[in-house]
């Protein structure tokens, strides 16, 4: 007697279809799960057994072997509880076996037979749909999230008894009042503030606008209280809505982290992550044994990663950012295999000019020695700084500074600039100016603009790589100005955004 059901095993965001088979043998009662289950999945034996008994169903007094196939793929977590229970019930003839074998089952069981919500339902349902499955059974509390994926039939169940009745068992008893099973509490990030709140700071405001238009990584240096954090937190508000593919990837990561409210639908706004400077490398890039979990850079996918007090971060932590900045994803290797998470984010660094914060500030005196100052910035490695297209100084706010334009006004300009860039880059695979390579820049930038940059290069003011970066920024400035291509003035402006102090 063999019962079958289907489940999904998640490795990072990649889901694999898993065939769950249950075999009943006339031997001493035992229950074993094979197919590389981890400790959390081994525990599902006890949950499944109790849930079946609590649902008015019989636990077969046989030697039960459950196989999770492909047997070589490591599996983890409580998401397969429901599929294991259905396979056992099908093997013992307590549910309609043919009907049971046709669907994918996701959910964790509680001892009273209720089906509890699980994390990562969105990527799991998407993977099931991609694997050609047409019918997916999910916990009632995850129904809204599962329905974000189109083209599949979703059945939401509150308890194992309810599911057994759907599969033709009249005697099953649905768990009493499953009202105790609530969807996981989610605290949504507060709405980003409005650009109008930033008083004065015309230069820094413009730099943020250029960064938003071209997707450039940016570093702001300035004394405490100058408004660096305020500016950075307003950057996501300037970015356009995510497209469908990005929205699904972003929502999937947050579904896996349990930081997403399905009642709002797919996450369409770029996320903003601001980890504290005491964060470990694992917290930033993702980590954990067996199955590595996504870190701050993956939660910032499609949005902004803001590192305040950047030189206070551990050197090792900062250097882990280099590979994701290059490839747009992070690959975490563990003994059981590699996990891939998307990590294409816009990096915003903020730093004080020196450890005491007073260097270069009129009317206050810096007490840092030369060596402390050097050490402070020495933590930001050359390769990391190399990837920042824009580096600006943020001056302290002057008295009586005027209120600037609102987010809505600036975001509209950014949207127009981004649309212009996308039209220009159609067919190249790139969507923003920050992605342009050296060859493209040198063949497409008008000669007059190139000459302006060449002058700075010849005088040794910038490196060849710095030259490319300035050209990228110049294209964004041109896009914002509504020009078809940068002119010399745009390159000069871009150069000023590299060395601190804006033209």
């Amino acid at each position, binding site marked *: 007697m063999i019962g079958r059901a289907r489940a999904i095993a998640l490795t990072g965001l990649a889901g694999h279809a898993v065939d769950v088979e249950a075999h009943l043998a*006339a*031997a*001493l*009662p035992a229950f074993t799960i094979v197919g590389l289950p981890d400790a959390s999945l081994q525990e599902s034996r006890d949950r499944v057994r109790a849930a079946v008994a609590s649902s008015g169903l019989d636990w077969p*007094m046989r030697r039960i072997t459950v196989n999770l196939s492909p047997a070589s793929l490591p599996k983890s977590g409580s998401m397969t509880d429901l599929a294991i229970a259905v396979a056992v019930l099908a093997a013992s003839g307590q549910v309609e076996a043919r009907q049971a074998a046709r669907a994918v089952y996701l959910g964790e069981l509680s001892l009273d037979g209720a089906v509890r919500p699980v994390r990562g339902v969105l990527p799991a349902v998407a993977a099931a749909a991609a694997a050609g499955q047409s019918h997916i059974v999910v916990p009632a509390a995850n129904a809204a999230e599962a329905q974000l994926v189109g083209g599949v039939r979703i059945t939401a169940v509150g308890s194992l008894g309810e599911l057994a009745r759907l599969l033709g068992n009249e005697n099953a008893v649905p768990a009493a009042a499953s009202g105790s099973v609530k969807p996981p509490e989610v605290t949504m990030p507060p709405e980003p503030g409005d650009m109008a709140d930033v008083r004065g700071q015309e230069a820094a405001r413009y730099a943020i606008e250029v960064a938003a238009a071209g997707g450039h990584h940016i570093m702001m240096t300035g004394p405490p209280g100058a408004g660096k954090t305020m500016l950075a937190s307003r950057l996501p508000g300037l970015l356009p809505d995510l497209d469908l593919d990005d929205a699904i990837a972003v929502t999937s990561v947050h579904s896996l982290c349990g930081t997403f409210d399905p009642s709002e639908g797919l996450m369409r706004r770029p996320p903003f992550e601001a980890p504290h400077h005491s964060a470990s490398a694992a917290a930033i890039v993702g980590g954990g044994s067996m199955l590595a979990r996504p870190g701050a850079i993956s939660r910032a996918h499609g949005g902004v990663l803001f590192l305040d007090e950047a030189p206070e971060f551990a050197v090792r932590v900062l250097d882990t950012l280099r590979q994701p900045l290059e490839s747009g994803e992070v690959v975490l290797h563990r003994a059981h295999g590699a996990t891939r998470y998307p990590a294409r984010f816009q990096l915003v660094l903020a730093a004080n000019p020196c450890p005491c914060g007073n260097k270069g500030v009129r009317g206050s005196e810096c007490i840092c020695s030369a060596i402390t100052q050097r050490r402070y910035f020495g933590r930001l490695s050359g390769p990391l700084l190399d990837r920042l297209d824009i580096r600006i100084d943020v001056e302290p706010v002057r008295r009586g500074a005027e209120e600037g334009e609102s987010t809505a006004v600036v975001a509209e300009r950014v949207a127009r600039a981004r649309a212009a860039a996308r039209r220009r880059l159609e067919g190249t695979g790139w969507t923003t100016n920050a992605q342009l390579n050296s060859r493209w820049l040198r063949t497409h930038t008008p000669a007059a603009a190139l000459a302006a940059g060449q002058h700075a290069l010849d005088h040794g003011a910038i490196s060849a790589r710095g030259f490319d970066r300035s050209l990228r920024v110049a294209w964004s400035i041109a896009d914002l100005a509504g020009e078809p291509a940068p002119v010399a003035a745009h390159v000069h402006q871009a150069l000023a955004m590299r060395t601190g102090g804006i033209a």
Partner: protein
Amino acid sequence: MAAKDEVGRHGERVVTRRLEEQGWEVLARNWRCEHGEIDIVAVDGSDLVAVEVKTRRTATFGVPQEAVTPAKLSRLRRLVGLWLASQDRRFYGVRIDVCAVTLPASGPALVEHLRGVG
């Protein structure tokens, strides 16, 4: 004799009768040595079988076959070896069966025969 022992005896009698009806040759009942006891030693075709009989009146404390633990099985294996050493007959194979007997309040006893459990 305590009531539980009487239940056990009754179960063993029921099982012996069933096995003989199936054409098994029962060689010994309640064979004892210093290490323990085998309920039934019988021959099924060419195989020697040590049968452990577990009898229960209710399933309140679980079904009878659940009471056969891995420790009990390993002791049975040792006892079968000792039994074989104590006589001269040779067998094609040796195995251990469990017969789970449930005695309902009325009606015939229910026997579930699990073959080759250890």
